[in-house]
C-alpha cells in the first residue's frame, strides 16, 4: 500500500482554495440522510459535531466524561495563534506558516501547515462571535501576547484559561445542536472498537461506563477526536482519563500510526514531589514572556535563590540563545533544562528543577500588572507547592505534555481506513516533530470548524459511506465480541499487581528511555522491557469489581493494556529514526554544541506504521516530505 496524501495541485497558498473549489457537495436535503459518529468532545470533536449538525447531518457524539464540557482541551492555558497582525508587528499568514514548519523542525506536511495558518484568522472571528471573552485593550480591541518560537505577538488569550473559554464556546455550540435535535449526545461512553464494513469505517462499539453495556452504533463516517497519548508516560500534564484506546483500536483495525515517537516535553511544569504523584501540572508558556529562567552559576549551590547575586546566576537560555532568549521553542527549552540539571546545576530538593523568576517583571511592571497577566497561574502554583511565586522564583521542570504523533491522515484528514477521519491532537499532521505554543487550540478548531465540513462532504458526495449498514451485521458482532473478550480476560487474571502499579512501571521505562533524550542501547532495552511488562500484565494484573457497573479500574485496565502496546511502537519508531529532530533527540546525532542534528537526506519522511499480529513486527510505510515553498535549513534560535 502506498500512502497518498491527496494534496491538491497548484501553488502552496492556493491549494486549500483549489480544494474547496473542486470538492463535491452534498445537497442540503441529503445531508440529513447521513449519520456521522463523532468520538470525543474536545476542541476538535465539539466544534466538528456542532458544525456538521448545523449543516444538517445527523450526528451522534460520544465522550468518556459525564459532560462534553470536560474534555481535556479545557485545561489549555496560554492561548491560540492567528495571523491577524493586529499589533502591526509584521505578521502574515506566510510567517505563521513558516514559524510552524520551522518550529516542527521540517517534519510536517507543508500544505497542511499552510492551510492551518490561512484558517487561523477565521477561528478568532468565529470564537469572538460566540461570545468568547478574549483579553482586550482599553480601547476595546483584542490584545495579543508572545509565545515561543515566534518574534511577533500573535497569541490571543483569555487570561490563563484560553482552552476553557474556547472549549465552552464549542460546547455551547454543540448543546445548541442537541437542543435543535441535530446531535444526539452519549456521555460516559468509551469507544472500544471501530467497525469496518467492506473496507470502510461504518460504526463503533462503545462501553456505557455506567451500566457496562457494550453499545453498537452504525454510521456513514467516523470522526475520531480523542486527543493525544501522553499518559503512556504515566506522569504527564494530561487529564487522568486521557488515553490512546480509541486511536489504538483503530490502529489495530488497519489505521496507520504516524510518528509515534514525537512527544512534546513541556519546559515549564511543576516538578515531581513524590512517588505517590498522580499527575503533573503545567505552568503556561506565556509565563516565559516575563519570567526569566536561571540556575546558580556553580553546581550544587544550595543557597536560597534570593541570596544568590545576579553575577552568580546563569540565565542559560538568554546566554545560549540570545535571539529568542527565554522564548525559544519548547523542545529547545526542555532539553536545555535537562542538560543543565544532569550537569548538577539543578535546584530544589531533587535537583531536578530550574528557576523561573519574575522579580525583574515585578520590578518593571509592578505586582498588580503581573497579577493581572498571570494571577491564576501564580495561585495554582502556590496551591500545589505551598510557595508564593511573587516572593521567590518558581521551580519548574519539563513534563510530558502533548503528542505530535498520531493516526496518519491525508490532506482531507482521512486515515488509511476510508471513512475514518481523525482530527486534532489524535492525528499527526500539522506540528511535525515539535509543536509551537498556542498551536494546538488553533489546529483543533481549524480541523473541527473549518476543514472537516468540506472534506467529509466530499467523501460522502463521492459515494463514501453509501448503502445501509445495520448494527446487527457480522462486523459489529465481531467487534463487540473482541471488546467483550478483552474485558473478560482482564477481570479474570486475578493477579497481585494493580493497574496503576503497571502504569507507573511503564511510565518509568518510557521516561527513562523514550523521553527527552534517547539512544540506541536504551531504546533496545525499552522494547524488551515493555514486552516483558506486557506479558506480566496479562499474568499478574488485579482488576477489581464487575463489568456491568461503573468500574473505573476496569476502564483504566483497558487503557493501560493499550499503552503497553503503544509504548513499544514508540520505542521502535524512535529507534528507527536515526536523526535528531524537534522533540526527538537521539544522542548519537547532535552538533558539537549539543543541538539536534537532522538528517534530511535519509529521514525527511513521515513514518506511518501498520499494525500486524506480531507487535515486534509492525510494517513501516513512508510518506516523503517535499518542501516546495521553504528551504530545509538548520533550525536556529541563536
Amino acid at each position: 500500500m502506498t500512502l497518498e496524501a491527496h494534496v491538491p495541485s497548484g501553488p502552496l497558498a492556493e491549494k486549500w482554495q483549489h480544494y474547496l473549489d473542486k470538492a463535491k457537495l452534498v445537497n442540503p436535503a441529503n445531508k440529513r440522510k447521513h449519520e456521522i459518529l463523532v468520538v470525543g468532545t474536545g476542541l476538535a470533536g465539539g466544534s466538528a459535531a456542532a458544525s456538521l449538525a448545523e449543516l444538517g447531518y445527523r450526528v451522534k457524539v460520544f465522550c468518556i466524561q459525564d459532560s462534553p464540557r470536560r474534555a481535556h482541551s479545557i485545561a489549555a492555558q496560554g492561548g491560540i495563534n492567528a495571523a491577524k497582525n493586529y499589533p502591526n508587528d509584521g505578521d502574515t499568514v506566510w510567517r505563521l506558516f513558516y514559524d510552524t514548519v520551522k518550529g516542527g523542525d521540517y517534519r510536517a506536511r507543508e500544505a497542511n501547515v499552510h492551510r492551518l495558518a490561512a484558517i487561523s484568522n477565521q477561528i478568532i472571528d468565529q470564537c469572538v462571535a460566540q461570545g468568547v471573552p478574549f483579553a482586550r485593550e482599553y480601547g476595546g480591541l483584542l490584545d495579543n501576547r508572545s509565545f515561543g518560537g515566534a518574534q511577533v505577538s500573535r497569541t490571543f488569550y483569555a487570561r490563563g484559561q484560553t482552552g476553557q473559554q474556547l472549549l465552552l464556546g464549542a460546547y455551547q455550540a454543540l448543546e445548541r445542536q442537541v437542543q435543535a435535535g441535530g446531535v444526539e449526545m452519549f456521555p460516559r461512553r468509551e469507544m472500544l472498537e471501530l467497525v469496518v464494513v467492506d473496507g470502510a469505517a461504518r460504526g463503533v462499539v462503545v462501553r456505557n461506563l455506567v451500566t457496562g453495556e457494550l453499545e453498537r452504533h452504525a454510521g456513514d463516517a467516523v470522526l475520531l477526536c480523542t486527543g493525544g497519548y501522553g499518559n503512556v508516560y504515566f506522569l504527564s500534564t494530561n487529564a487522568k482519563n486521557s488515553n490512546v484506546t480509541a486511536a489504538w483500536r483503530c490502529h489495530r483495525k488497519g489505521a496507520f500510526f504516524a510518528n509515534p515517537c514525537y512527544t512534546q516535553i513541556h519546559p515549564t511544569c511543576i516538578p515531581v514531589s513524590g512517588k505517590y504523584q498522580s499527575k503533573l501540572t503545567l505552568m503556561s508558556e506565556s509565563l516565559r514572556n516575563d519570567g526569566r529562567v536561571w540556575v546558580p552559576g556553580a553546581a550544587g549551590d544550595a543557597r536560597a535563590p534570593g541570596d544568590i547575586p545576579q553575577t552568580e546566576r546563569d540565565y542559560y537560555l538568554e546566554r545560549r540563545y540570545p535571539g529568542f532568549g527565554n522564548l525559544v521553542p519548547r523542545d529547545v527549552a526542555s532539553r536545555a533544562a535537562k542538560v543543565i540539571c544532569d550537569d548538577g546545576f539543578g535546584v530544589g530538593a531533587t535537583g531536578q528543577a530550574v528557576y523561573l523568576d519574575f522579580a525583574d517583571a515585578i520590578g518593571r511592571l509592578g505586582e498588580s500588572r503581573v497579577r493581572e497577566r498571570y494571577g491564576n497561574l501564580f495561585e495554582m502554583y502556590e496551591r500545589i507547592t505551598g510557595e508564593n511565586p511573587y516572593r521567590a522564583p518558581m521551580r519548574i521542570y519539563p513534563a510530558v505534555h502533548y503528542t505530535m504523533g498520531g493516526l496518519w491522515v491525508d490532506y482531507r484528514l482521512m486515515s488509511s481506513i476510508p471513512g475514518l477521519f481523525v482530527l486534532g491532537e489524535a492525528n499527526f499532521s500539522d506540528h511535525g516533530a515539535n509543536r509551537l505554543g498556542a498551536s494546538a487550540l488553533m489546529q483543533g478548531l481549524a480541523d473541527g470548524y473549518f476543514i472537516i465540513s468540506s472534506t467529509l462532504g466530499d467523501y460522502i458526495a463521492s459515494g463514501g459511506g453509501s448503502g445501509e449498514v445495520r448494527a446487527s451485521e457480522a462486523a459489529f458482532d465481531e467487534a463487540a465480541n473482541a471488546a467483550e473478550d478483552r474485558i473478560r480476560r482482564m477481570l479474570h487474571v486475578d493477579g497481585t499487581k494493580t493497574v496503576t502499579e503497571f502504569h507507573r512501571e511503564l511510565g518509568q521505562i518510557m521516561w527513562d528511555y523514550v523521553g527527552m533524550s534517547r539512544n540506541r542501547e536504551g531504546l533496545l532495552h525499552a522494547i524488551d522491557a515493555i514486552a516483558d511488562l506486557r506479558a506480566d500484565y496479562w499474568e499478574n494484573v488485579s482488576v477489581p469489581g464487575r463489568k456491568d457497573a461503573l468500574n473505573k479500574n476496569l476502564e483504566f485496565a483497558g487503557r493501560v493494556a493499550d499503552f503497553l502496546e503503544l509504548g513499544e511502537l514508540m520505542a521502535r519508531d524512535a529507534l528507527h529514526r536515526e536523526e535528531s529532530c524537534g522533540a526527538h533527540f537521539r544522542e548519537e546525532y547532535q552538533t558539537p554544541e549539543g543541538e539536534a542534528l537532522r538528517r534530511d537526506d535519509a529521514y525527511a519522511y513521515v513514518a506511518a506504521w501498520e499494525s500486524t499480529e506480531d507487535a515486534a513486527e509492525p510494517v513501516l510505510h513512508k510518506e516523503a516530505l517535499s518542501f516546495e515553498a521553504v528551504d530545509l535549513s538548520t533550525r536556529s534560535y541563536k
Partner: protein
Amino acid sequence: MAQTMTIHFKIWRQSGPDAKGKLVDYTLDNLNEDMSFLEALDVLNETLIHKGEEDPVEFDNDCREGICGSCGVVVGGIAHGPMKATAVCQLHMRHYKDGDTIVVEPFRAEAFPIVKDLVVDRSAFDRIIAAGGYVSVDTGGAPDANSLPVPKNDVDEAFDFATCIGCGACVASCPNASASLFTGAKIAHLAHLPQGQAERKQRVVRMVDQMQAEGFGDCSNHGECEAVCPKQISIAAIAKMRREYLRAVFG
C-alpha cells in the same frame, strides 16, 4: 522528605442509584502533606485493591488542575473542602493534621442522582445550557473579530462569570439545592457582551424554565454557593439573572 500522616476517613459508599448508602471507616497511616486529597483517595483505592475485600471508592476526577469540573465531593461538610477558591482536586493534605478524621460525601441534590459512591449525575447542567446558554451563530460568516470593540471592563466582568467550571458545588452547598449560581453565571456572561444581546430575553427565560423543570430549588439568598465556588463566582450573577428575567417578562 515530607512527614508521614495518619488520617481517618469516613466515606460514603453506595453501590447504585437505588441502593442504600452508608459511611464507612478507613484509616490510612502512609499519607504525607505534599499529597493532594485525591492522591490520598488513590492510595486508599490501591490499598483496597490489594486487600481484595471490597471494591475501590468511585469518584469523578480528570484534569486535577481545578478546571474541568469533574471532581466534586463534600469534604468535612463543605463542598470541595475547607480551602477557599479551591476545587477538591487542588486541596492538599498539608491542610490537615496527623490524626484528623475526614468525612467524605457526594454532592447531594434531587437533581443530581447518585450513580455510585461519590459519583453523581450532573447532566441537568447540560440541559440548562442546551436550553439557551449560547449565542446562536453558525460556523462561518462571522465578521472580523475587531469589528466590534468591547470595553475592557465589560469583557472583564463577563469573564468573571464565564469562568464557571460546572462542578455543581453551588447546588450541593445550597439548602434549597438551587442551581441559580450556575445558571446565572452563564446568563450574566452573555448579557455583558454585545454578542449576547440578540437573544438576551429568550435566553434567560428558557434557561430559568429549564432549571426549574430539572427539580432544582429556588434561591433564597443564603449565599452558600458563592462561599464554596472554586472559581469565586459572585452571587451578583443571581441578581443579574433575576433582573434579566424580569426585564424579559415585563420589560
